[in-house]
C-alpha cells in the first residue's frame, strides 16, 4: 500500500491526515522525523505559517533530505504555506525548498479580513466545481517554462504543477472535497 506522508511540523496536518484516512488503498503517515520522511511514497506539505515550518525544516535537518527526495522524483503537494515552501522564488524573501519554478507572493490577498472562499471548476482536476478556501493566501505571480498552470482566479494563478510537484494557494484540507487529493494521488 502506498504511504502518503503529511509533514507534521506545524499547521493543518491533522486535517490533511483526516481526509487521507477516508481515501481507500493508501496508508496515511504523519511525518515529523527524517526516518519517516525517508519512508513515504508521496508527501503533502500542509497550510500553516511558512516561516515557522521552514525554520523547523532547517533546524531538524529535514530540508536537504526532502530536497534530495524531490530531485529523485518524490511526488509532493503543497497547500498555501506548502506552496510557498516549494517555490523557487518568493517576493522579497529567500526560498526554502527551491523546487517548483514559480514566483510566489506571500499574503498576496491581504490580512485575515481579506480571506475568502468560492466555488470554481478546475478542468484539469475535476469537471465539478470545487470549494476553494483562501486564508491569508499567497498567489503565484509567474511561472517558468516547465510549469503547467492549472487554475487562475481574477487573473492570478492559484494552482500549478511541475512534473510530480503540485502547488495550490487554497486549502482542500478544510473542505469535504477529495478531488484534489485524487488528482495528486495519480501524479
Amino acid at each position: 500500500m502506498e504511504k502518503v506522508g503529511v509533514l507534521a511540523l506545524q499547521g493543518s496536518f491533522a486535517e490533511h491526515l483526516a481526509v487521507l484516512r477516508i481515501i481507500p488503498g493508501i496508508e496515511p503517515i504523519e511525518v515529523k522525523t527524517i526516518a519517516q520522511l525517508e519512508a513515504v511514497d508521496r508527501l503533502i506539505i500542509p497550510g500553516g505559517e511558512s516561516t515557522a515550518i521552514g525554520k523547523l525544516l532547517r533546524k531538524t535537518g529535514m530540508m536537504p533530505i526532502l530536497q534530495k527526495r524531490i530531485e529523485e522524483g518524490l511526488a509532493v503537494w503543497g497547500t498555501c504555506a506548502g506552496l510557498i515552501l516549494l517555490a523557487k522564488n518568493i517576493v522579497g524573501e529567500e526560498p526554502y525548498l527551491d523546487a517548483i519554478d514559480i514566483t510566489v507572493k506571500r499574503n498576496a490577498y491581504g490580512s485575515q479580513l481579506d480571506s475568502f472562499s468560492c466555488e470554481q471548476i478546475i478542468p484539469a482536476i475535476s469537471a465539478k466545481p470545487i470549494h476553494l478556501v483562501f486564508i491569508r493566501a499567497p498567489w503565484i505571480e509567474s511561472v517558468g517554462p516547465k510549469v503547467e498552470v492549472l487554475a487562475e482566479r481574477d487573473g492570478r494563478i492559484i494552482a500549478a504543477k511541475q512534473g510530480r510537484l503540485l502547488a495550490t494557494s487554497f486549502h482542500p484540507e478544510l473542505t469535504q472535497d477529495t478531488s484534489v487529493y485524487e488528482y495528486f494521488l495519480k501524479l
Partner: protein
Amino acid sequence: MTDRAILNRNLAQMLKGGVIMDVTNVEEARIAEEAGAVAVMALERVPSDIRKEGGVARMSDPKMIKEIKAAVSIPVMAKVRIGHIVEAEILEALGVDYIDESEVLTPADDMYHLDKHQYKIPFVCGARNLGEALRRIGEGAAMMRTKGEAGTGNIVEAVRHMRTIMSQIRQLSNMPSEELMTFAKDNGAPYDLVVEVAKNGKLPVVNFSAGGIATPADAALMMKLGSEGVFVGSGIFRSADPAKRARAIVMATTYYNDPKVVAEVSEDLGEAMPGIEIATISEAQTFAKRGW
C-alpha cells in the same frame, strides 16, 4: 454559520501546533518571527509587567500595532478589554488578524462580553472550564485558549484549566442525550453547543493554552494535555536569552512527544522568568477570575 465565521475558525486551524508570542515592540516581533512563532500578540506591557506596575491596562497604541504589522509577515494579534466595543472596532479598523478579548487587560464591562458576531475580524477568548469556553464560542469567538494565570511563570493554573476542559468534554461524550440540557443549565453553556461537543468529542474551535508557560517543558506539557498550540507571554521576553528560549519553545511544541528533543532544547537556556506562587496573589490581581 456564516462564511466569515468559518474562515475565522479556519485561520486558527493554520496556527495549530505553533507558538504565539507576546511582543511589545518591532525588535521583539522580529525575534519572535525569526524563532518560528506562528503569530505575535502586540501589546504595550507583558502580563508580568502589568502585574508589577498595576493600574488600568488598556488596548495598545495603534501606532505600535501598525509598526509591528509592517515589520513581520506572520499574523498579528492584539488585545482589547473585556466588553470594550470601541477598542474592538479600532483593532478591526487597523486590520489586525485576530483580537484577544483578554482578562489580562482591565475589564471595561463587568457583566457582558463583546458580541463577537458583530465583527468581521476573528476573536480568541480565554476560559477556565467548558461552560465558559462555550459561552465565548456562543458569542462568536473563533478560537479559545485556556486562561492559566498570566504573568506568573507558574503553569499550575493552565494545567488545571486544560484538564478541566478536557475532562468535561470526555464526560459529555459519554452522556446520554437526556442529560445534556441539565449539563447546559449547570454549566451556563448554550445547549446547541453542548450537543455539538457531546457528538464530536471536541470543541468546535481550536483550543490553545496560555498563562504561565515559561519553559520548553511547560509548552510540551500543555500539548500532552490536549492543547493545540501555546501562547507565551512574559515567559520569553522576561527571560535571560529570549531568542534562544523562543526557538526552544517552538521545538518543544512540535516535538512534545519526543523527550529527547525536549531535553536537548532545554539545555543551557539561562534564567527563566521569575515565578510567582498563585496563593500569594490577591483576589483583585487574579486575572483568570475576570470574565463572566
